[in-house]
């Protein structure tokens, strides 16, 4: 069995209650950190652990913390990105619903390291019922002296608040999230300046994903070396993978980075194989934004090496034959799946979620959806396929935020790997599925 850092005890009944969490060793990391680490020492521990941002970008967390502007006289903020909206991703919902105190404990640790006095958990509005669970846990933590003034007599004080979004995928982009937290439309900001310098209310701010923050208590309790000993290469520690689609056991799995993809898909410990004994056709390995790979390339790299669940191995081959770890949203498709129709649902998603600020994304996402509707509906032409590739190329890299790339990559990769299926739609003048 793999080390459980995030899902440890998650099935214990009542874990969302302070008492249960505490009896299982909860908040020991806060006690230890406040007594034995200075904020800078704690930041160093996180740096040495090698943990990378689990929201999708995979940026080293300790390095991100290191960028916070310490010269500024303004207050600093830590904001938890709980805007989980990337299709295929449903890990954070699970963590907060069943183990809210783990997230709170992580927020206290991160806030202490960064010198933060007010921290926010920005959670997508659809997950209001999860927010209420977390809110209740926050009240318990205040009552027990883990939040509020002078935590455990250390002299350190912290307030923690939940804030619901209003339904917008774009607010998962950190600067859009900050705009939204300020009560505005979720339009991403131009970077630089980065939030570490100019963030919430113009103050130095760090935005971290739920899963990243939830790993902090374990790192403090067990040490950065123990964390860095798990995993492979520059992929340290464990990762939550939310697996869905045509598999026997959809769900949330905590894996040690480096697990072979084949084992993840076929082992009974994880996905348990493809439904009805069907044939694996394709996988979107890291949430809808990352390139789709056909069965042969997700199981093995182009060089014939077994593909591993790690940042490096999933990216092996670049856009030609590789993909990305992303958020860990693992979408599995069997041989009955129409790649064009699946892509159409993604294209509709990105058109719906584009904030409209940048023309290439605002117009491009709409064009890509329309052309895909045409092809799927049997009115497409061969030229339409090339037109899609062309539009994707002109959206990619030409927008303020990564939503443009996120909309372009699924289109470009689906045509790269499954072109014959698009052509078949055109030839038959209908969907062959």
């Amino acid at each position, binding site marked *: 069995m793999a080390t459980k850092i995030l899902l440890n005890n998650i099935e214990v009944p009542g874990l969302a209650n302070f008492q249960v969490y505490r009896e299982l060793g909860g908040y020991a990391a806060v006690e230890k950190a406040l007594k034995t680490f200075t904020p800078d020492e704690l930041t160093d521990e996180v740096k040495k652990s090698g943990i990378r941002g689990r929201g999708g970008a995979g940026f080293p967390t300790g390095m991100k913390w290191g960028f916070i502007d310490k010269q500024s006289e303004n207050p600093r903020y830590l904001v938890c990105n709980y805007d989980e909206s990337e299709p295929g*991703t449903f890990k954070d919902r699970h963590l907060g619903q069943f183990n809210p105190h783990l997230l709170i404990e992580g927020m206290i640790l991160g806030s202490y390291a960064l010198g933060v006095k007010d921290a926010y958990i920005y959670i997508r509005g659809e997950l209001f019922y999860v927010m209420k669970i977390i809110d209740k846990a926050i009240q318990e933590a205040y009552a027990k002296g883990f939040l509020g003034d002078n935590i455990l007599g250390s002299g350190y004080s912290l307030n923690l608040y939940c804030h619901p979004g209003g339904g917008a995928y774009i607010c998962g982009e950190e600067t859009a999230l900050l705009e939204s937290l*300020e009560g505005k*439309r979720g339009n991403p900001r131009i970077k630089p300046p980065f939030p570490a310098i100019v963030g919430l209310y113009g103050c130095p701010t760090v935005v971290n994903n739920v899963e990243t923050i939830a790993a902090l208590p374990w790192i403090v309790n067990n040490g950065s070396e123990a964390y860095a000993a798990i995993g492979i290469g520059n992929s340290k520690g464990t990762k939550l993978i939310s697996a869905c*689609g045509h598999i026997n056991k959809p769900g949330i799995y905590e894996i040690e980075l480096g697990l072979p993809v084949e084992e993840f898909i076929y082992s009974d410990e994880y996905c348990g194989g493809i439904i009805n004994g069907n044939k694996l056709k394709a996988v979107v390995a890291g949430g809808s934004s990352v390139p789709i790979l056909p069965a042969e390339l997700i199981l093995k790299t182009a060089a014939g090496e077994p593909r591993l669940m790690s940042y490096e191995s999933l990216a092996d081959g670049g856009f030609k034959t590789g993909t990305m770890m992303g958020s860990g949203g693992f979408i599995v498709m069997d041989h009955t799946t129409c790649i064009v129709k699946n892509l159409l649902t993604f294209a509709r998603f990105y058109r719906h979620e584009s904030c409209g600020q940048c023309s290439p994304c605002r117009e491009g996402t709409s064009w890509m959806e329309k052309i895909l509707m045409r092809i799927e509906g049997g009115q497409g032409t061969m030229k339409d396929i090339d037109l899609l590739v062309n539009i994707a190329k002109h959206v990619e890299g030409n927008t303020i935020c990564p939503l443009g790339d996120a909309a372009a990559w699924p289109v470009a990769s689906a045509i790269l790997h499954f072109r014959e299926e698009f052509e078949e739609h055109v030839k038959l003048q209908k969907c062959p599925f």
Partner: protein
Amino acid sequence: MQENNKVPEFNRETLDLIAQLIKRYPEGRQKSALLPVLHIAQAENKGWLSPGMMDYVASLLQIEPIEVYEVASFYSMYNLKPVGNCVIEVCQTGPCWLKGAENIVAHFESRLGIKPGETTADGQFTLKTVECLAACGTAPVIQVGTEYHENLTTEKVDQLLDQWKAENKMSHKNPYL
């Protein structure tokens, strides 16, 4: 943008809640409470944000009405037109589609006699299609108010609809209470 002369007004309990929410943000940053307050306002206004209600929210937060309109029109959870008592939101993105979301939408359509975006003649139900609800492992999924209903089948849809009809289901409730 006042559509009638009736100015909405929250009761004391709701106003106290809003005052508490505003305190979560630094002084002078009360606009931060806009999204939370709009959720409350919508629930108190039969599930939608009328121009009058948005103006009232602007006055509560001491911001300009346009600052409320531009936000309310950006986020998908806010309804700018009247809706039925029970709003049914069906996820249609990839992972739900893979597990038969189209059948679920079609079943709701045939049972209710309406298309997505429409409300039944008796004002009981509104059907909406929405994008990813972050519950892909238990697809297909719908949301009704703050409730998720997962692993849906047409049989489950029948059960839910019968139940909601019998109890006159109301999906708009102040989500904080």
